[in-house]
């Protein structure tokens, strides 16, 4: 059974601070996706990374896919209260299923 472990589970930081969320597995994934979910809503896709070692930037968010395609990280620079939410990583297995991590709940205090 493929599992994705996210860390930390909870993160409470002050506005302006930087943070990194990690997503790790012992399994290889075809691609990895990052989502953000607000309370009472469905996850919203932030980025998809496909190639080992790939780095993608989305404004203040930087996503990296590990060389072996088993892990990924999300780095947020100068966090803002609008970044508050549940961040989910999801790995795509060989049969195109998404395996989700348990999420990182981020609170950015003004």
């Amino acid at each position, binding site marked *: 059974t493929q599992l994705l472990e996210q860390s930390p589970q909870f993160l409470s930081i002050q506005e302006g601070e930087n943070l990194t969320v990690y997503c790790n597995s012992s399994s290889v994934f075809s691609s990895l*996706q990052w989502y953000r979910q607000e309370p*009472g809503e*469905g996850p919203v*896709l932030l980025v998809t990374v496909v190639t080992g070692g790939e780095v993608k930037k989305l404004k203040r968010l930087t996503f990296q896919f590990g060389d072996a395609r088993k892990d990924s990280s999300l780095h947020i620079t100068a966090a803002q209260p609008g970044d508050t939410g549940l961040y*989910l990583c999801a790995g*795509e297995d060989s049969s195109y*299923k*998404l395996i989700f991590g*348990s999420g990182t709940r981020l609170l950015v205090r003004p």
Partner: protein
Amino acid sequence: DAGVTQSPTHLIKTRGQQVTLRCSPKSGHDTVSWYQQALGQGPQFIFQYYEEEERQRGNFPDRFSGHQFPNYSSELNVNALLLGDSALYLCASSLYGGAGYEQYFGPGTRLTVT
């Protein structure tokens, strides 16, 4: 361009009852996947439909079944409801196949079983 829509938004059922949830995919998408998200957890894959057939299934009992219609919309049926079935049920649509295909989620249906 309408995104993924789901109905109803909320539902309260009693143990032992049956429930049907509905999903309309994003325009241009042909594949629908269903997920169960318990409180404080990440979504768990239930099954995926493409060309009106179940293509992939997660670790869920046969009480969970589904259907896809010719217009690509889909239903999720759960029989003999248990208290543990209380969760947010998410539908996601995509184009079938290929590494890095992107799934777009609907707002979910919140099911409460009492």
